[in-house]
């Protein structure tokens, strides 16, 4: 067994090296940059950059908008994907082909979707067109993941639950949700990660680095500081963003553990 484990670890070395080299090291470097005055003088300034960033009104606006996106758009995305997956599960015959329809938004280039979106909605006053765009672009992937999870559920468990008197919503709350909770957590995390990537859609939609206040997210803040050569604000913003994601992941994992069977 020991030999077997050793073999496994040896074989995992290349991918661990890859992750360390391309993810961990750059992240450590970003933390380092967030603690120095600038990349040329390299004077250590402690948490001063964080202080500056947190006190900045536009960072706070960006943070608020990013959090709102996670709090509003991600749950809407996951719940809609969940309900649609359940609905698709019940589809028979040719109706099953409907699943393919939800994959189409993933295949269509974002720029083309944005052109259509711009003719359909005016996002100057409301942030909902951006939220809708985010949901439209990502719902396909979540439906695929959830449908795959549903297909693994054993009908015997449901039959047993029905015999015990569980029906309708209780059946899903007591059986479906706990059984697919790992997949559900994964879809939530994907939703959160993708919500940070909504910058691309938003940037194409507004075509400027200075969108309306409601759509100014953390990525805009970081992108604009990139062009201002302000690596310190960029790095501090990135670290804060990653901490937010980390907190969401930890909370998600704990909740999943709590609710899984």
């Amino acid at each position, binding site marked *: 067994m020991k030999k077997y484990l050793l*073999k496994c670890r040896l074989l995992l070395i290349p991918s661990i090296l890859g992750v360390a080299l391309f993810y961990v090291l750059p992240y450590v470097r970003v933390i380092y940059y967030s603690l120095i005055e600038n990349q*040329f003088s390299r004077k250590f300034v402690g948490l001063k950059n964080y202080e500056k960033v947190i006190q900045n009104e536009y960072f706070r606006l960006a943070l608020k908008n990013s959090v709102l996106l996670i709090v509003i758009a991600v749950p809407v995305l996951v719940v809609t994907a969940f309900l649609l997956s359940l609905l698709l599960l019940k589809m028979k015959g040719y109706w099953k082909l409907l699943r393919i329809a939800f994959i189409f938004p993933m295949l269509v280039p974002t720029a083309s979707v944005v052109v259509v979106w711009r003719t359909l909605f005016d996002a100057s006053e409301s942030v909902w067109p951006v939220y809708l765009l985010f949901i439209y672009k990502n719902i396909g992937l979540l439906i695929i993941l959830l449908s795959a999870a549903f297909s693994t559920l054993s009908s015997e468990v449901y039959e047993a639950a029905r015999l015990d008197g569980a029906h309708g919503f209780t059946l899903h709350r007591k059986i479906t949700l706990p059984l697919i909770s790992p997949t559900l957590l994964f879809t939530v995390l994907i939703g959160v990660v993708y919500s940070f990537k909504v910058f691309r859609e938003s940037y194409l939609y507004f075509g400027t680095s200075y969108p309306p206040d409601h759509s100014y997210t953390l990525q805009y803040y970081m992108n604009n500081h990139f062009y201002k050569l302000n690596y310190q604000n960029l790095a501090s913003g990135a670290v804060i963003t990653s901490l937010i994601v980390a907190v969401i992941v930890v909370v998600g994992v704990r909740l999943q553990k709590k609710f899984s069977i």
Partner: protein
Amino acid sequence: MKEKKATQRKHVIVLALSMLVVFLAGCGGKKEKDRAESVHVPEDTLLGYTYSEVYTPYQLSSCDVKVEIVQPDSWDFMVTKLLAGDSDYDFMVLSTDSSLAKDIMRTGAYYALNDIPEVAGLLERYHDYIKEAATAENGEFWMIPCGVNVPFVLCREDLCEEYGLDFTDMTYLEFMEQVDALPKNGVHTFFTPYGLMTEDILNKFEQVYGYENMGEQDKELLRSYMEKIRAYDVPFNEGKWWLLSSEERPNQMSDESLKNIVFELERSDNMTLSSSLDFFRVDGFRAMKLPDLERGVVCPMKAKVDFIVINPKSAKLELTLQYVSQLCEKLQKDTTNAFRYMSQGEDFSNNVLREDLYRLISEGEVYSTYPYDVVGEELMAYREGKLEFDTMLEEIKRNIEMYRKE
């Protein structure tokens, strides 16, 4: 049991191999474009990056030290190079009108050149406002100015008189009216590059009035100019030759053709780029400042300075500094474009046009503009009729506030 173990082993091997493939694919995933942008030069050659061909008139490559100047495909590439503190390039050639210039100075992304006597010597030969622009707040020389570029009106006094044109003490609105009224069937030509004119009008408005706290009067002034710009319906960067004759303007200008030009709106860097535009060849040309926006509000000539900034992390810093010394010495001695390099004390009395240009440049002021995303997008949207004037102004004000405070 044995079978299960073998299957498990197979699974682990497949998993590990697929991870290795993904890892290697990631390592080897460099695109053709990336390869093209990763320039490798020999050990004895310096590498400089620029975003436009501004360096061509400055003979940057003609020193003893070999240099290769590359224009990358994207602006992002240069920003990334600066931010990453890469050591594989030695200098950048930029212009002060770009917001990047200000950011380089602010973030200290330069090698201070105070210890190189030739740099100090060259700066001494420029006008004070250029020396000031080349000096950071801490007193460090952060860039080497290569050329000063100002827009101006170039005209032949005799022909202007013939057509009743007087460019002294004129506003742009009056200037445009006069240009519109010129006959188009004579034997002479004139050139109004609307792009240059638009740029100058907007620069002047930005520097003298500003978008942020403008009063009603300033707003009306901008509105009248913006409406005029929109009425011309040409992209910001385009110019237009107007022929007063039925003949096409020849590409190669003979002395006779040059004498037929009533006036042109020009930039000092265009003056010697091509022999076809060598206005010094013939007598009778004068240069004068571009019109102001309104009477009584005089605006300095907006000077754009093309400059070199040295990479503080350059792996060939010693060779680069050697090059800097040589280049500064060369620029100081260069008399072919004396009006450009502004060798103070130069005798211009033999040519009235050179004298005019010298005077115009000496009255200049270095300017920098907001990035295109802050102001340009909205101005363009208004010009294309996509935004109302008041909405455009509100958007610009908001963008400026955001740009400054974020």
